[in-house]
């Protein structure tokens, strides 16, 4: 039972990286970006290939981030430079990535037991060697998510971060500040898809596999966690949006875990994901029209 709790919390912490990305795009940038469903498996594909080739597992993190950033950049360029509607720009990137991911990985990939991951390689072993694999996963996921959260919080307080928050809030003001709002949007999309690909990378380390369809429903997951988090902590101003979505992510993964424990067939998982999202939307009273700003 304890093992189950630990692994569920670990899942929540890892997937919170998706929530960060979705939080930036949907909540701060106000951009309905579907490329998330493609950049998540992209991060996993890059990671799986590098791991099977014997690359240092820690190097897969920056590699996945770079790949995700490229995906976000392309969505941004398609939208801003080619003037394609935001929703369609994301769909185009997502669709293209499905093939690109398969091209990168060759096919669905499994990373062998003997291959080291970020949970089994040095220096993780030096620090958390005394813990079980499950414990190490929790510790590493916690530290990684915490580091990203603190970094993101710090970034959102910089001038660049302030401008990013402004562009989703009132684009006219950004123009008035003599800044190209298109460039700011591209920056936001690049950043958020980089985070989502990082999530894909860590998930690949955790479950030792990549599958082409693992991205399906990740946008919905991310949105649900953002709405849960933001709604729960609406009245608590001192809780940052990034903290709120971590809690949202853990809660969400717990709900799914409970459903599985109750004997839910795996084939129904996405259905439950969708219904849970609908429930969250209706209960939070937001109906997806305005998911703005924690």
């Amino acid at each position, binding site marked *: 039972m304890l093992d189950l709790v630990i692994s569920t919390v670990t899942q929540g912490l890892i997937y919170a990286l998706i929530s960060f990305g979705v939080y930036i795009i949907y909540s701060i940038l106000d951009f309905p970006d579907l490329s998330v469903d493609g950049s998540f498996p992209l991060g996993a594909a890059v990671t799986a290939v590098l791991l099977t080739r014997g690359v240092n597992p820690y190097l897969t993190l920056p590699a996945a981030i770079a790949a995700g950033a490229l995906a976000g950049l392309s969505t941004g360029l398609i939208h801003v430079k080619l003037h394609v509607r935001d929703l369609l720009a994301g769909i185009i990137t997502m669709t293209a990535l499905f093939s690109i991911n398969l091209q990168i990985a060759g096919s669905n990939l499994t990373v062998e037991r003997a291959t080291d991951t970020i949970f089994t390689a040095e220096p993780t072993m030096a620090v958390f060697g005394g813990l079980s694999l499950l414990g190490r996963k929790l510790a590493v996921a916690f530290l990684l998510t915490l580091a990203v959260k603190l970094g993101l919080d710090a970034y959102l*307080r910089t001038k660049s*971060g*302030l*401008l990013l928050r402004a562009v989703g809030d009132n684009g006219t*003001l950004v123009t008035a500040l003599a800044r190209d709002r298109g460039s700011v949007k591209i920056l936001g999309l690049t950043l958020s898809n980089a985070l989502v690909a990082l999530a894909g990378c860590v998930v690949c380390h955790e479950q030792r596999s990549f599958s082409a369809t693992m991205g399906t429903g990740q946008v919905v997951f991310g949105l649900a966690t953002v709405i849960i988090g933001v709604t729960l902590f609406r009245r608590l101003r001192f809780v940052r949006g990034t903290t709120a979505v971590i809690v949202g992510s853990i809660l969400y993964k717990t709900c799914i875990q409970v459903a599985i424990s109750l004997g839910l067939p795996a084939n129904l998982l996405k259905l439950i994901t969708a219904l849970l999202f609908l429930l969250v939307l209706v209960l939070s009273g937001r109906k997806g029209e305005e998911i703005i700003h924690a």
Partner: protein
Amino acid sequence: MLEIQKITKVYNAGTVTENRLFSDFSLTVDDGQFVSVVGGNGSGKTSLLNIICGTIPAESGDVLVDGQSISRQKDYQRCASMGRVYQNPALGTCPNLTMLENLSLADNKGRPFGLSRGVSKTRGAYFREQLAALGLGLEDKLNVKMGSLSGGQRQAVALLMATLTPLRFLILDEHTAALDPKTAEIIMALTDRIVREKRLTAVMVTHNLRYAAEYGDRILMLDRGRIVLDRAGQEKRDTSAEELFQLFSRAALDCG
């Protein structure tokens, strides 16, 4: 000096609803001039501002600053030397950012938006002083979200933000039209003070003929894309709101 040379602007070109608003429209605004533009709906006031700011393109003609064409510059590039205040108070500020964050953004205009602190602690006193000068008691609300302020308060902050960093041209797009009469009065007096203090060149579109008569040193009346009245200097000072109203009614009658 701001020059608009031989502008042509056609809406819905080639359709039955084609509307040729400006043909060979020209206007020169001298440095330091405060121009009020009045005219009925569809007379081209807002289109004129949009063409100056680059929000909409003109079919032909040129916009020049000090003899240099700015027609190829994008709207955000032109904003480097221009400030604009809109009719809708929500357009001038970010509702979900605090007043301090809003002012910090405006304060950084013209400089890079990099990875240094977005909100400078040392600028707080300066912002408070600027807000106190508005006389609306806003100086104690630096950490309040902009969206929770009233329309008048937001417009005052929008005006302050638009003119916080050095600029040459202030574009006022019916910026008192959405405010109650008392607040409109305050914002108008504030506008006049800022334009004088900072020696700005201002173009103000307004539906309020009294403001047009009272403020500024030049008045333009537009009717279907043509200038039907252009008074400056003593002639402008002698123009009363009543006279403007009569001229305005005549123009409106001509229009049918």
